């Protein structure tokens, strides 16, 4: 027989358990719908809010919104790092938030299914189009000249960072050719320094590395493969795969490169255990804060010194349509569109003024709070009138994206030959032609 106290405890636990389940099953509070613009309106926004680089600009934009639109209550739904699954589920179930961050592939899919609002009129009425810099116009308009999202990220690039102190310590110069790079790798290995910390668990960076090397031979890089310009891997793309195989075999990356995440790679680089690192230009501010003048970026090495010089104008990365999009089925879609434009603009402002990131879509005339570091100023100069490729999230073909991500990650293991890579990639390119 159970004692009275035992029964009471079990009863209490059951009540708590029941309440937990009921709370978990409860649906989200519905959006407060008010038709009058001056009356309180609650808008939900699905946006990135993961690290300092995304938290600070969002908070800044939300604060400015409160001043400009005091009646709007913005409820943040943090974007999941899940290849867009959550957003897609929202769309399928008719639960899309009023404003959401969308990339190129989502925009294309949502255009077909009527889940994204055409913003051509709003772009004009809010004057957003005039605020966007000339170089970033390609990010605002799609191929048909329509606007589906208010972008904030400009033409960002893949940067090859290096630790100047380590290079000086071992009497090395910045490699201009792959041969010089192999020498650098050898010297660092002899001194137990990891030549390059690449966070290869994230497959976009393995693709970016392939793109960096491929642009030395073919300036279109992976973009030319994605848009169907190149129907079969030509000599340049094959050589790029060969170079990566050789670099991997020479020990350029840590042993567990395909299992290394960003935090681990950054730690290796910041602590001087790794001499080089690849990431977007957005890493500059963090790297500079951690390493000061010891860190710098280099132009991508190439197959010859002439090619190195010529290749300075071909950058891996680049912008693509995407940003804050609006749910056309929102009860407050007109207001949501204005808010989305406002948030995008203020997001750019925050990045430019406070995060020392000038690679934004909107022209900012004010001076940044902290003047740009030397790396940033040099990069701004270096990326004038240059060509770009794409980051993987800007690729238009999801099947190609998946395939190249998987294949380039395999190349880093030094257990995968250039022939295997080319065979698989050609197969997918052929399938893309058939489709």
């Amino acid at each position, binding site marked *: 027989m159970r004692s009275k106290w035992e029964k009471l405890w079990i009863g209490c636990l059951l009540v708590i358990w029941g309440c937990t389940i009921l709370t978990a099953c409860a649906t989200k509070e519905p959006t407060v719908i008010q038709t009058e613009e001056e009356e309180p309106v609650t808008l939900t926004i699905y946006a990135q809010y993961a690290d300092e680089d995304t938290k600070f600009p969002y908070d800044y934009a939300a604060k400015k919104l409160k001043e400009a639109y005091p009646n709007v209550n913005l409820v943040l739904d943090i974007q999941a790092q899940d290849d867009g699954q959550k957003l897609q589920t929202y769309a399928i179930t008719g639960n899309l938030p009023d404003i959401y961050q969308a990339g190129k592939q989502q925009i294309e899919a949502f255009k077909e299914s009527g889940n994204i609002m055409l913003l051509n009129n709003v772009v004009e009425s809010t004057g957003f189009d005039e605020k966007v810099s000339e170089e970033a116009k390609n990010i605002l308009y799609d191929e048909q000249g329509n606007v589906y999202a208010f972008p904030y990220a400009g033409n960002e690039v893949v940067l090859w960072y290096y630790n100047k102190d380590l290079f000086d310590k071992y009497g090395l110069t910045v490699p201009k050719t792959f041969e010089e790079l192999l020498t650098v790798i050898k010297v660092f290995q002899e001194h137990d320094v990891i030549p390059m910390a690449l966070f290869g668990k994230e497959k976009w960076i393995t693709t970016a590395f392939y793109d960096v090397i491929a642009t030395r031979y073919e300036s279109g890089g992976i973009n030319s493969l994605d848009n169907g310009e190149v129907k079969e891997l030509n000599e340049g793309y094959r050589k790029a795969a060969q170079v990566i195989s050789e670099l991997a075999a020479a020990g350029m990356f840590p042993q567990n490169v395909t*299992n290394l995440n960003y935090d681990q790679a950054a730690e290796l680089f910041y602590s001087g255990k790794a001499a080089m690192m690849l990431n977007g230009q957005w890493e500059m501010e963090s790297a500079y804060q951690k390493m000061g003048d010891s860190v710098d970026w280099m132009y991508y090495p190439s197959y010859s010194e002439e090619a190195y010089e010529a290749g300075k104008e071909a950058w891996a990365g680049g912008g693509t349509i995407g940003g804050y999009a609006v749910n056309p089925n929102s009860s407050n879609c007109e207001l949501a569109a204005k808010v989305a434009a406002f948030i995008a603009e203020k997001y750019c402002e925050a990045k430019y003024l406070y995060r020392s990131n000038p690679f934004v879509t909107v022209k900012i005339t004010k001076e940044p709070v902290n003047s740009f570091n030397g790396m940033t100023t040099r990069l701004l100069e270096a990326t004038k009138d240059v060509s770009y490729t794409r980051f993987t999230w800007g690729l238009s073909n999801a*099947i190609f994206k*998946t395939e190249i991500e998987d294949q380039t*990650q395999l190349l880093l*293991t030094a257990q995968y030959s250039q022939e295997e890579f080319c065979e698989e990639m050609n197969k997918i390119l052929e399938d893309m032609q058939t489709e």
Partner: protein
Amino acid sequence: MKKFRSNKLAIFLFTFPALLLFIVFVFIPILQVFAYSFTKWNGISAPEFTGLKNYIRLFTDKVFYTSNKNMFIFAILVTVYQMVFATIFAIAVSDAKIKGRKFFRVAYFIPVVLSVTVVCQLWLSILNAESGLLNTMLRSLGIDFQQNWLSDRYKSIYAIAFVNAWQWMGYQFALIVAGIKTISTDYYEAAQIDGANAAIAHRKITIPLLAETYKSSLIIAITGGIKAFTEMYIMTKGGPGTSTYTLAYMMYSSAFRSKEYGYGLAAASMLVLECLAAIIVINAVFKSNDLDAVKKKKRRLFA
């Protein structure tokens, strides 16, 4: 009891709620999986019927064969590890002479109650090729067997399968311990009188009498191996490249990364069929063993 069983309405009333839930949440979705596997679908727009195209592509896709190979490796390793160690540990803790039985009983089960994410993170640290506990230990012991456990194209699947086997062994252990408890001690006493030692007694009594428990354990272990996904997702993201893909991971990658829901569901259909086939085979094996036992018994009776 007889009267109750003849009451059709009562039977219907008691089984209907569970049956309804099963039909709505399991049976219909499985049928939908098969239906959508014959379409080209991006998950949002209307699906377009494409006949057997997804299946033809699936059978010519290298990743499908890699996934199947990994699935078999995973299922076999998990099953062997769990069955062998769970049996040994269960027999050991069921022996009244063993000291600290209660402690071991709890200790073996602890990994089961841990979150998969926690277990994967733990093993990620242990298996880290550069600074992991395992390689460091091997190095300090002077054993030249350091491996690139999770970034090796050919070996990483074994490391991941081991993590799964390690975590869920406790579950099989609990099932077998419960099974052993149902065996009457009379059999062991009789065996002892006949001169059998402990090993023979367990081989001749414990293991044969646990046939039904083993059947359930085998089904759990094999189907668990076939539908493995979480460990790959957390530990290697299916990598390097597609080296640690299983059918479940292939389904995920096709549907959510490539946005090819139709193709992903064709992989899912194969997964369902393979699970069913595994269950049928296990049932058939145990059934034939039962029949053999009955035949032997009859032969002895008529001899």
